[in-house]
């Protein structure tokens, strides 16, 4: 695979992405909301204590939080819910970019001249995949960094410790990229079959369902996923993504694009 070719495709993808106002608004708005919302929520919870039953349930799974005051424990529990939201960014941003990019090229019929050039379809797919994946990961990581900074400034060392523990780091830096890759794969597979980016996003949005399920499970306090849990989830999602990638590569074959993509 020639890096110069991949970089050329990547550069053009980003050039077009930043000029697509609709796409940019869907990429930029949620990270801003997701940075501010947890801080406001933790503040709103304030010094209010959790119901004793829930408190017991949480401490049984997070014994390291036993030293927290009731207010810190409530804030830590509230903030904990938002970890999964940082997984949503690597999920939906690559999906949006990949579907807009591939379906946009289908609609403008611009892939055929590209495929007529002496490039390999793996280089084309790599360029498109990286162009879709990187903004999602960077948005997730940048938002997380800002969130950690705000949490430590506003709520002190207790919450800072919560949002930088191994669970969070594994979630943001291991599961995030795995979810991002699964999202790109879903975008490629779905975009090969449909001709409307919005439909593709709705269908491809299936990858977000497990993330939402994780939110719900955590919100009830019945299961707070730890570092090992995130590691296992990352491996599982990565394995599924790699299987999907094989399907995606087949769909992205030169002949398949020219003769079957409609």
């Amino acid at each position, binding site marked *: 695979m020639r890096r110069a070719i991949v970089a*050329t495709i990547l550069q053009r993808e980003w050039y077009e992405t930043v000029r697509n106002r609709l796409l940019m608004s869907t990429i930029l708005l949620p990270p801003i909301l997701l940075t501010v919302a947890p801080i406001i929520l933790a503040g709103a919870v304030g010094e209010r204590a959790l119901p004793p039953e829930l408190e017991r349930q949480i401490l049984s799974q997070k014994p390291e939080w036993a030293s927290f005051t009731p207010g810190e424990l409530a804030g830590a529990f509230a903030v904990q819910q938002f970890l999964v939201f940082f997984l949503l960014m690597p999920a939906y941003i690559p999906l949006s970019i990949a579907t807009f990019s591939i379906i946009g090229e289908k609609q403008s*019929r*611009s892939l*055929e*001249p590209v495929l007529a*050039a002496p*490039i390999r379809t793996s280089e084309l797919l790599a360029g498109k995949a990286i162009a879709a994946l990187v903004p999602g990961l960077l948005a997730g990581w940048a938002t997380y960094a800002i969130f950690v900074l705000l949490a430590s400034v506003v709520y002190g060392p207790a919450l800072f410790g919560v949002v930088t523990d191994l669970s969070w780091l594994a979630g943001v830096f291991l599961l995030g990229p795995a979810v991002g890759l699964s999202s790109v794969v879903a975008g490629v597979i779905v975009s090969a079959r449909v001709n409307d980016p919005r439909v593709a996003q709705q269908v491809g949005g299936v990858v977000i369902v497990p993330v939402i399920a994780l939110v719900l499970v955590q919100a009830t306090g019945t299961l707070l996923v730890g570092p090992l849990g995130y590691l296992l989830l990352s491996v599982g999602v990565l394995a599924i993504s790699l299987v999907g990638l094989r399907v995606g590569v087949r769909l992205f074959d030169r*002949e398949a694009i020219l003769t079957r993509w409609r």
Partner: protein
Amino acid sequence: MTSTRSDRPPDGPPDLALEASGLGRRFGDRWAVRGVDLAVRRGEVLGLLGPNGAGKTTTVRLLTALIEPSEGTASIDGFDVRDEADDVRARVGILTETPGLYDKLPAIANLDFFGRLYGLDAAQRAERIERYLRLFGLWDRRDDVAGTFSKGMKQKLAIARALLHDPSVVFLDEPTAALDPEAAFIVREAIETLRRAGRTIVLATHNLDEADRLCDRIAFVRGGLVRVDSPAALRGVLGLRELMVRLSGVASEAQIEAVRTVDGVSATQVTDGVLRIGTDDPESIAPAVVRALVVSGADVVELRPERASLERIYFEVMGVTPSTDGIEDVV
């Protein structure tokens, strides 16, 4: 420079830019094209002429290594389309059925992107982009996004894109389809410019006039190559010349029958009140035709030898007799 073009000497004959032998492609159970035998000399303009669905685009895609043949072989500059596809792609330029430009990118950025894909360095890209944008009259619009261009301008920009890497063979697939007359004229002028510059061009079209004007040879395509020859040779070999006779009135059956008895007359047809007589040599038979008509009581107003239109050649080669039955009833 990161070149994507192999420098090894081509294996094929140096005067041939393109060769194909028994080339065919099947989709499922259906053959799109089959048995394509072709040799295109350098500097030649070859037309692929045929109706929609005849296999022109499939042939172009096979010859440009975009899809693999199901049988047979083809090569560009001696490089095999199946085994040396990257080398073939580096040596061909293609204008696809639709321009396929990036509408949000300026004209110059569209070309620069493809220049990079073809491995041209920055200096080469700058020089060639300026050269081709000037050649096609787009230099002043170089910073405008392609989406603001007219259809004709988009086609010209797409042709510039196809030429950027200095290809051995340029493939133009339906370059004037869906264009208005003005845009089509502009694009034909652009192709004429390339032809004068000695480019090897394969022009897929169903526009008979375009093929007649621009091509050195025409390959009639219908699921394969039905016939390949120059327009002049096709007219000669097929004996497709005519003697046009205008009478003072409508030609009667007896008068037409009298003409048919003249030696050298191969066919007769009355269209728009004009008697058209098929023959190899209209000049030689003209006196005998006039005598036969006068004897049978006709008044000859005008008589003129004509070369058959490419439309007639097309129907002859394709073995098609277009039916106009029922049209008058509808009108």
